[in-house]
């Protein structure tokens, strides 16, 4: 397991709390502001997912699609997102782990080996590839490369997946596993607690790996419900929404900060 994630989950356990994982699209609305946002998020979140934008994403709602397009317009590409994370990590005081969340194309085009190496040199702690299939040669290669360098390969499981699929996924998954709480796009529905319970059970039957839950978590009460079952709550659209609506507002980071502070109140086990 990646060291930073290990520490995060251990600390939370000690405090009888869950962890909050925040998502923001890298370079949304631009490099400078994105950097400020990520630094601010690192004060409140247990871990941070940075979206490496892809213009033909297939699982994102309009909120995150728009963020992707803003970032691409601002010049976002794989190289710059690595640079952004590296700079942010060097400026923050803590060891908050950072993940890159993206689709397979940017990774594949960049070259999987090079991408893995760059994770290491940029202090990236984990990678999530939304559209990576267990059977694809790219998935195999990426999981192998990330394992070598102890970067977490966090994989998604969804309410439609059966135990066989979850078992297969667990073989490659490292540090934690990501439950998609409903059948739908990021931020398009309310978190579905029943689904989470069902999938968690299947995971727990097969593994002790920490569980993060994402899709549809926006409020303190959402966080609270999820933390009763899982180890981490992932908040994406809620944050990206604030960025989208306040991209030229001087109070942007303050707004994010107070939004996250409130969510954290739901982290008690």
């Amino acid at each position, binding site marked *: 397991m990646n060291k930073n994630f290990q520490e995060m989950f251990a600390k939370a356990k000690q405090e009888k709390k869950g962890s909050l994982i925040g998502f923001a699209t890298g370079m949304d609305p631009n490099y400078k502001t994105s950097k400020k946002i990520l630094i601010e998020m690192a004060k409140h979140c247990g871990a941070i997912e940075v979206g490496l934008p892809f213009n*033909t994403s*297939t699982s994102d709602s309009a909120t995150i699609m728009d963020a992707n397009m803003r970032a691409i317009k601002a010049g976002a590409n794989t190289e710059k997102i690595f640079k952004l994370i590296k700079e942010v990590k060097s400026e923050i005081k803590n060891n908050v782990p950072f993940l890159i969340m993206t*689709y*397979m*194309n940017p990774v594949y085009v960049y070259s999987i080996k090079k991408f893995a190496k760059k994770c290491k040199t940029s202090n990236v702690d984990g990678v999530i590839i939304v559209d990576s299939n267990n059977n694809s040669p790219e998935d195999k290669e990426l999981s192998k490369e990330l394992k070598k360098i102890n970067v977490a390969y966090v994989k998604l499981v969804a309410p439609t997946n059966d135990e066989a699929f979850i078992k297969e996924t667990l073989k490659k998954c490292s540090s934690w596993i990501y439950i998609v709480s409903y*059948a739908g*796009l990021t931020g398009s529905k309310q978190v579905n607690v029943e689904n989470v319970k069902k999938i968690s059970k299947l995971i727990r039957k097969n593994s002790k790996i920490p569980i993060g839950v994402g899709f549809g978590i926006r409020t303190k009460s959402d966080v609270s419900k999820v933390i009763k079952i899982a180890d981490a709550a992932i908040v994406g659209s809620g944050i990206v929404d604030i960025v989208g609506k306040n991209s030229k507002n001087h109070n942007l980071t303050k707004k994010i900060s107070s939004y996250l502070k409130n969510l954290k109140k739901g982290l008690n086990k």
Partner: protein
Amino acid sequence: MKIPPFKEINSPNKNGYWINPKTKEAYGGQYISPLLIPNLQKVEKCFKKALKDKKFMKGLEEKLLTFIGVNTPILRSKELEEIAGGQKKVGKIYLKRTDLHHDSSHKPVNSFSSCYMAKHIFKAKKIICETGASMHSRSVAAACAMLKMDCEVHIGAVDAEKVSLNKDISELYGAKIVVVHESTKSLLPAMASALRSWQSNPDAMYVVGSVAGPSPYPRMVRTWASVIGRIAKQQFKQITGKVPSTLFCVCGGGSNLMSMAYPLLKDKTEIFAVESAGEGIPTGRHGATILGGSQMGILLGFKSKVVMKSAQIAESLTEASGLDFAAVGPEVAYLHDIGRIKFRSTTDMAAKKTFLMCCEKLGIVPAIEACYVINAALKEIKKRKNPKENHLIHLCGSGESNVARMIKFKRENE
């Protein structure tokens, strides 16, 4: 008339990849949120079951013959031979009249087959699809109307304007139209939008309009669509005693190409695919994938040749809504890379002029998509100058929905 039976050749491997024996490059696969993996497995299972289910196949073939009207003729075009330099110099030119299908294009053969499978084997109540020229949506919506299923169509805002007639017909058939305002507002974001919608409606079945998308779609679509080529091959042999010397098809995603080319892959026919060069490939404003500087990439569930700007999918641009796509289907890319299919391109301007020429000289209103192939075919046939050859051009659609724009073009250019 019976539809010649399907014979599987050139199958992908169990993970849905075609493997280039020289480079080991893999084309196809399944790159999609885990949410949809079970659906794709179900589609694949249903597809395999369907092919073996005699009652299903009989019912399907009857509908293809009587509802879609797949037994369309092959027309010898002396008019095109004349334009190319005369039969004595360039050989004979034939047109496969897929424009005479119900809903006026090759699309209904796959659409209806997929929906029929969705109804009777997948047991879906709702179909989701994307569309470019709205030929696909129109035919999916028609199938859904007849089969009493709900239909949701994703269409780019630009295309909704461009081919409003087909869009309106889709609506008359009862489809719910989702207009997509992202990126190019055309086929590619529409397909992304459809895939997204499927994730929110995993009980629905997704019906792809070309030989693209995650496995098993590329294989399934070309299998259904190959009915056209199976019939055409038989007809062509009856007319000329041989398979065609050359085959010309336009290539957006590649479904009309594969529909005709698939049954001829093991024959001696030289196969040409024609892409849209838009305003000219060097301008960067085009819809050409293979000839437009593509590399291997992963999008919309599959790995294939894609035109990109850094790692982002490039924005294609062409008059033809059906060709407005920065990728080709994986089997098409594979067949290009192993040298089985050659590529040519035609600019928008040349295609538009070809449209007017076809109206004035042939008495046929072709889909604008088909004008790219007719133009390129005439050039190639002229160049070959082989009076012994029999050329087959796929007239893959009728152009009613292009008339509004083309009559404007005609009037502006007179």
